[in-house]
């Protein structure tokens, strides 16, 4: 088991490095933090040199990532130029905010998607199945920004216009008591959940249907098991196997910060920081976020594979 984990990490870490390298070179090739200084050059030579040094701009573009890697090895992530804090600090505080909506959204979407998949698969071609499948189709067609804007407008603004009540906040306030936080997170969590439920429930339905058509389900029924037990014990455990990978992917995406939803709800998470970093050519911040999301992906994929082994005895991890 331990050997397996080590081997997996050894196989994926280089991939992560290549990705970071590509992002670094890509940004370096197309931006120059000294852009403003070129116009005033002889006068502001000092400032020009300071930035050149700070960003190692005299090093060849293709070699520049290695300086970054070198400082990474010493635990240094650099300083975010757009926010003005150390990248590590930005990732920590913003990551916390992101987690505040990512974890509930993940849990809610996983649970609902699972319930809907089981329902739709058990009642295939029933009215309820058509309804939920239709809804999922509809939800899948919504770009996240359209959905978030609508939810923000309806629940954050129009409720107040129509009924004079304002149950939810449209962004992160500073409150720390649980009720405040609940008011803050409801709308972004709702937006994210709807998107993920739509995608996962269709996948889950297909997986569940395939499992319910297997011979061993017929065997379970022939034993005299109640349908509830056939579905929740015999079918679900098999149907979960492909879903686990999907969830791992979802969770790492959510934890990496959803750029669109967080921006729309003015949520001080990783997403808006990333966008700002992009426009300001804040290379250290971008790399920090790519590193973080990449690590999440690697980690949760590993978790998914271990879960595989737990769920399916045919898979041996060694």
């Amino acid at each position, binding site marked *: 088991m331990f050997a397996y984990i080590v081997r997996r990490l050894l196989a994926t870490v280089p*991939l992560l490095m290549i990705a970071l390298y590509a992002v670094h070179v*890509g*940004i370096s090739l197309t931006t120059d933090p000294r852009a403003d200084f070129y116009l005033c050059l002889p006068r502001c030579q000092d400032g020009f040199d300071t930035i050149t040094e700070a960003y190692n701009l005299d090093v060849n573009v293709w070699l520049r990532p290695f300086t970054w890697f070198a400082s990474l090895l010493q635990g240094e992530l650099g300083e975010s130029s757009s926010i003005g804090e150390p990248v590590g600090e930005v990732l920590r505080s913003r990551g916390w905010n992101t987690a505040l909506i990512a974890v509930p959204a993940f849990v809610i979407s996983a649970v609902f998607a699972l319930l809907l998949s089981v329902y739709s698969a058990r009642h295939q*071609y029933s009215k309820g199945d058509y309804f939920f499948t239709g809804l999922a189709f509809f939800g899948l*067609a919504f*770009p996240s*920004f359209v959905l978030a804007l609508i939810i923000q407008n309806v629940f954050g603004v129009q409720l107040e216009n129509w009924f004079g009540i304002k149950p939810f906040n449209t962004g992160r306030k500073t409150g720390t008591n649980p009720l405040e936080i609940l008011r803050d997170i409801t709308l972004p969590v709702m937006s994210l959940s709807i998107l993920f439920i739509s995608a996962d429930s269709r996948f889950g339905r297909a997986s569940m249907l395939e499992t319910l058509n297997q011979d061993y389900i017929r065997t379970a029924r022939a034993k005299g098991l109640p349908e509830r037990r056939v579905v929740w014990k015999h079918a679900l455990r098999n149907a979960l196997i492909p879903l686990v990978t999907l969830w791992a992917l979802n969770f790492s995406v959510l934890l990496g910060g959803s750029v669109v939803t967080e921006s729309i709800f003015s949520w001080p998470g990783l997403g808006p920081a*990333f*966008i700002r970093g992009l426009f300001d050519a804040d290379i250290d911040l971008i790399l920090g976020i790519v590193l973080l999301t990449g690590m999440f992906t690697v980690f949760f994929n590993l978790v998914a594979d271990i879960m595989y082994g737990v769920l399916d005895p045919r898979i041996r991890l060694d």
Partner: protein
Amino acid sequence: MDEGSDFDVPEASDRSEEAVPLFSVGEVEGFSAEDAAHYASDELEGLSDAPKSFGRLAWTRFRHHRLALLGGIGLVSIVLMFIVGPMLSDYTFDQYDVADRLLGPSRDHWFGTDEIGRDLFVRTAQGGLYSLRIGLIAAVVATIAGTLLGAVAAYFGGWTDGFISQLINLLLIVPALIVLSVFSLYFGGDANRLAMVLAFLLWTRIARVVRGVVLSIKEQEYIMAARASGASHARVIFRHVLPNVIGPVVVEVTLLLGTVIVLESTLSFLGLGVQPPNASLGTLVAEAKGSIDDDPLRVLTPGMFIVLIVLCVNFLGDGLRDALDPRSRNERN
């Protein structure tokens, strides 16, 4: 091809039933060597009028798929509206009139006007076409690249397969939107370059599907039968492998088209995609989002067009999947 086969290939299973499909629809009646002529003349004719090729059969199944038909018709009407609509309008895409700013829908301006008085109907139509164009180019490029790389990986196996699979993993490791944002901000711009960036990220989906299909086709007995007849590798690939890949690829392309349109509009919404003076549905939403509280319709109209287009495309893809996937033949009742 043979060198690559590992030990799960060869032994024939000893099944001895399942000879006649239980409910084959176009079943031909029986023949023995002796009285074939007699049988065929009266039994065969009544059952099916024309030989049913795979394509024909798929088309029949597709026609019976109501959602798919709806998707197809919807998509065609939206595109027609986008093309014909602006011709009927008195306004053009970038003609502005500050006196007419922020008008609501009227007979003159069907969807109203924006902050500098441009006609929103014409802008929506043009933006929609622009979105579709990017989506199509990206989907086509991703499909060609994905099909080639996926087929090559599966057909040759070994190190080629390993390399391409790792490339796919690489693109999976960092979330798509993050990479896309970086690349489209710095390499994007006009429609073609944005489409290339999108395609660069999305070819992996096609490649994975094609790789899987080719791997399973490679093991089919008809491939071995063709080789037993003396067919060359080229003949096997072009006559026996690729035609059987087309179905799954077509399905995947339609689904991909939906994804591309959503991704493009998202990027454009974030300001990372289409740049002014061009507009796509995503930028139209972004332009209007500031005034959403006073005038939600201006956000909803382009937003809903994205939803409608993607919905139609997905319906189409779903129908094609049912029509082209032989396994789903008897599933519906």
